[in-house]
């Protein structure tokens, strides 16, 4: 039987370091999370390029100008590309345009970012005006929506779970579960920042999936602790330890089964869902880790503390 409780501070320290490194790299090295059009807004143009222009050419073009652009081929026959340019590159576009037109030209002064983009593309690819099928400044559709609902949603969810768990178990379990949940979310967000994964709708789905999975996982362990607490006369930390060990093969098998279906997405080649799958893979491993090494040990720490408060 492995003594999980004995190493509780080790595992908590490990988590803390993980969080620190994740956010350190996110903000220190990259200056924040990756931007995406869905979340932050930016420029979007749909352009019909001449036949001889291929994706490769376009990629070279944008990287040579130091612009971060996402290209989507909309129509193979017509060679229509959708070009997404994040907010980060908007200033660069304006600057390029000013350089091209000359500092004092009225054209450059009055041009909006989208005008600048169209101007550059038209000149560099010798496009007629009608080949620019659409060009828009895109607002942050998903981002605005999620930041407004996300936080209230999360806190309410945590609140209700807390009530349910306090009612079905005890307050200390509720607290442990919630803290473990926050722990999982925070680390996963750090992971997203560390690898500069672009926030998108599937990523939100992954975070939500993780939330569900993580709660589920933690409750199974807690349930066992509750059951054993009635039967055994051991110390509380001993009970926790026994319970974790008893549920270990279940935890392992379930994690493997769930992981299989997620990893299949990566093997199956659903490119659109890669980011989703990466975040989930990481999240499931983490969720499993936290239900064993974080949630229950936190309950133990709280238990110890509250006993000490009572005595004093």
């Amino acid at each position: 039987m492995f003594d999980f409780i004995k190493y509780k501070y080790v595992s908590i320290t490990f988590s803390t370091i993980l969080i620190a490194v994740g956010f350190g790299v996110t903000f220190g090295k990259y200056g924040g999370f990756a931007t995406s059009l869905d979340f932050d807004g930016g420029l979007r143009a749909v352009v019909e390029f001449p036949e001889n222009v291929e994706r490769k050419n376009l990629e070279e073009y944008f990287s040579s100008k130091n612009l971060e652009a996402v290209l989507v081929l909309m129509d193979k026959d017509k060679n229509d590309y959708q070009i997404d340019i994040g907010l980060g590159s908007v200033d660069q576009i304006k600057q390029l345009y000013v350089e091209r037109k000359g500092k004092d030209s009225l054209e450059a002064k009055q041009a909006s970012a989208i005008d600048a983009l169209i101007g550059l593309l038209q000149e560099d690819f010798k496009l007629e005006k009608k080949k620019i099928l659409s060009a828009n400044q895109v607002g942050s559709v998903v981002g605005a929506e999620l930041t407004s609902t996300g936080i209230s949603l999360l806190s309410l969810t945590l609140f209700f779970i807390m009530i349910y768990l306090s009612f079905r178990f005890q307050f200390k379990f509720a607290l442990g579960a919630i803290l473990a949940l926050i722990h999982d979310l925070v680390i996963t967000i750090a992971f997203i920042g560390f690898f500069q994964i672009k926030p998108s709708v599937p990523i939100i789905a992954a975070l939500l999936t993780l939330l569900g999975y993580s709660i589920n996982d933690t409750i199974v362990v807690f349930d066992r602790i509750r059951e054993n607490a009635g039967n055994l006369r051991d110390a509380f930390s001993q009970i926790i330890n026994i319970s974790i060990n008893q549920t270990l093969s279940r935890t392992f098998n379930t994690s493997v089964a769930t992981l299989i279906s997620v990893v299949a997405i990566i093997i199956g080649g659903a490119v659109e869902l890669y980011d989703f799958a990466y975040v989930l893979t990481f999240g499931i491993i983490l969720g499993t880790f936290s239900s064993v090494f974080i949630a229950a040990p936190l309950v133990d720490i709280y238990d110890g503390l509250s006993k000490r408060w009572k005595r004093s």
Partner: protein
Amino acid sequence: MKSVQWIFVPILVVASSLTLLYPNFAERELELAVRKEFKQLPEETRKELLTGFAERWKADYNPKGDWQIEPDPNIFPDQDYYLVKGRFITSAKINQLSQENQELILEPKNKLRPTWVEEYIFGGRPLAIRLGLDLQGGMRVVLKGDFDDYTSKLKDSYTKEIEELTRKKDDHSLSEKERKEAQDKLKEIESYFELTPSRKLAELEKAKLIIDNRLTNQNLTEPQVRIQKDQDSIEVSLPGVSNSSQILDIIRNTETVEYRLREPSDSNGNSRGIYHDAIELEEMKLMNDGRREETEIVRFQNIVKQKLGKDEQDRFLEAMEKKYNIPEKYKLYVKWSRANNPKASLLPREFVVLERAISLDGKDMRNARESYDQNRLSYYVSFSLTSQGAEKFFDITSKNVGRQLAIVWGDKVISDPVIRSPIAGGNAQIDGEFGQKEATDLANVISEGALPIPLNVLEMRFIGPTLGIESIEVGLKAVLLGFALVIIFMLIIYRLSGLVADIALLVNVIVLMALLSLMGFTLTLPGFAGIILTVGMAVDANVIIYERIKEELAAGKHVSAAVAQGFENAFWTIMDSNVTTLISGILMIKLGNGPIKGFAITLCWGIITSLFTSLFLSRMIMDLLVNKLGVRKLQIGFKKLESKNV
């Protein structure tokens, strides 16, 4: 649960689920509607379009040749559709077909013929699982409300009242109290023009409702209309829409229906108003000189014919208002009608001068319907008035007998009958020179109401159908692969019990999909994620149960007792973990929207179905195996755990 009869419950559930899912895998027939206008195209263009369609049919749409099309895509069909037969005709595919052949195929009229399940059990309601924008392609538009324009229009409708109240306010012959009242009322009206955020939101809500109605009337599969509060904008998602500009026009159409009084005629009733007569005189002069082309009305007609747009028309009218010194109180309009021939096109024929103040607007009218008048061989639109509207209408018609009351639709005067007598009762009708389509359109505008605020396109994006098809195919492949691997994993670890779990898992997914299609749920990528999590949780429930049985077996219990005890012990664990997840799911449905909601709906129903399959179905099968079929050994895990008491 020892009773064998109970086995009919899951059998029944599975059978009805499969029936519900039948339309998804059955062979289906699609009527691919062709455009009537196609026949009017030049021969060469027609040929080119048809060959293009035939080539793409072979290469892209039907590379494996497992669909049939009648007639051959090279031939224009005799009936108004091509009939496509085959399995898995998804909406994404239908979109691709219509979008890439826009000049040949009329997308809104495409029809997937109902299967027998849909026809006989659900009265023609489509049951196939719907796919979201991200999976089937389509378009998304964000429209921003133009509140400046809104206020100016609003001011127009209060012109008369403001005028009257200002007069009262300054009229010293009135009592102090009356003047004060007028002043207060004036202030109140002015406050209408100030737009608070909540007012704006209310207007957006109205606009949303109207857009919703309009889109539903277009038979679009699944429009989603949402308000984005912080941006004063409305987001419209239209899965599968190809003809974007037409749809956009429909959405943004701010056409209204209003009644406005014409300028008064002279006391003898001989003229049709000073300004009208002035214009007419000028026009007649030009006509008599044989300079027809120079008349204002012909010039205006040319603007319309050349499709120079509404702005150009407005500019023209404004210039004319200046030229003829038409006072602020009146506004120049154009009456549209057909020349004597009822088949002639509707064109501007006459300038009319109307009061700027709106006598009665669309808000006062409702329940409009078009009908055919046998005697006059044309359509008319009848409608009823709200109680407030009926009062206003009676008031106007009784005060203005003998004057003309013009009906303005959008910016066109379509009819301007003389008021013969006061009209009471709240029912009225509009006779114009309507064809059926115009009458229907007008009736729609009245019934749906006009869009309260003009909307500008803030952002528009398309998701090509090909992208959607690829995502579905790959996504589905990935999910199936994952599913297969999980099934194998369970078989290896839990052997016979694993098989039971696998059956439960399969049933779970079937029932879940059936439920979702029954509810008309739209599947999106986040929805997929919800299903994956459901599979995970369903497996988990079985794993928990089996681990408990294993423990009981290890403790030396009889197989039958171990199974019973295992389920018992696992019950609350499974309940607790599922209920907590359910709580978060329900909150997500209540609070979240868009992607969060889609995910949460699949998750919540998935929890419910997996509770059914793991706690009820699995248990029943295990009971059956152990108690009826006499299975004496359950190998769970790799350690041999045989019951000692056999």
